[in-house]
């Protein structure tokens, strides 16, 4: 009898702590190795930079979303492009981190428990160098096997973020860059 009580008590404790764990972690997603690329197209030249170390957390209950991008993690095909990007345009030693602080506008449009593709705008503040601007873009969210992928493609103007392009190369670099965000989130355990 004593043993039985003990087992029931233990099962109860386990059940409660399991429920508690689910509750605490409930709805948080994160990625430590997300991808952000930018693309500059002009008749003279195409330039592409890829960053595979993008960090992000996403709260599926509130829709709150945070992204951090270390500028030095961008890789380019040509070493010279990478050098110019870091030293001249982004001043990445002075401003090593770009950030996005925002939210999924229509969080109810996404059923995180059901596989499928959902759409909602994402809006918030984008900080590049020392400039912060509010941005809004269309996001596509794909739920599959408990994982979540978030994708967005949008354009930014270099002038909005104090990125100055010297006259000599101004025909090679577009005034608007296309930014592609591709984040494979894992559910936070």
């Amino acid at each position: 009898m004593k043993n039985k009580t003990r087992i029931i008590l233990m099962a109860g404790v386990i059940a409660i702590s399991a429920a508690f764990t689910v509750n605490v972690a409930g709805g948080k997603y994160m990625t430590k190795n997300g991808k952000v690329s930018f693309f500059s197209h002009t008749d003279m030249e195409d330039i592409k930079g890829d960053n595979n170390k993008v960090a992000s957390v996403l709260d599926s209950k509130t829709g709150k979303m945070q992204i951090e991008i270390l500028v030095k993690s961008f890789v380019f095909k040509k070493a010279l492009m990478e050098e110019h990007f870091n030293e001249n345009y982004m001043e990445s030693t002075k401003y090593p981190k770009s950030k996005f602080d925002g939210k999924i506008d229509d969080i109810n449009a996404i059923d995180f428990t059901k596989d499928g593709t959902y759409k909602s705008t994402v809006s918030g503040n984008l900080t590049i160098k020392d400039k912060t601007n509010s941005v809004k873009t269309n996001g596509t969210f794909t739920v599959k096997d408990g994982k979540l992928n978030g994708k967005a493609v949008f354009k930014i103007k270099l002038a909005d973020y104090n990125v100055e392009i010297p006259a000599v190369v101004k025909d090679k670099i577009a005034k608007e860059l296309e930014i592609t965000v591709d984040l494979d989130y894992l559910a936070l355990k």
Partner: protein
Amino acid sequence: MFKRILLFIIIIGIIVAIASYMWNKPHKDIAAAKEDFILSATQFYKEYSTDEVASNAKYLEKVIAVEGVLFEIQLENPDEPTVALSTAEPDLTVRCGFKKELLEDVKKLKVGDKIKIKGKCDGMDMFGVVMTQCSLIK
């Protein structure tokens, strides 16, 4: 006159050669470069969490050899297999991104392994210190 034309052609040739070398100059080979700093993952993160600005001034873009215990292998981004080293803080790590050609090297590792990695320091984000262009030091 002929000499002068020849000289002119040679000078133009040199300028073109330098320009095309600069334009096509290869990426710095971090794996072959001598490390600027050797330290443990714990120490590396501790310095960064204490003073991010000073640590950036000291470590950004430098070649670092970091020693530590493998916390996690992260393969969710196929373009950059990643190895995270433990620090004194739970869940905060030193993340080391490898080129995808080195996937097999990364797959051979196991959680708990004591390893030494060389890479370029990119700074700190919400999950810890980040290094890219990493390779294993045998």
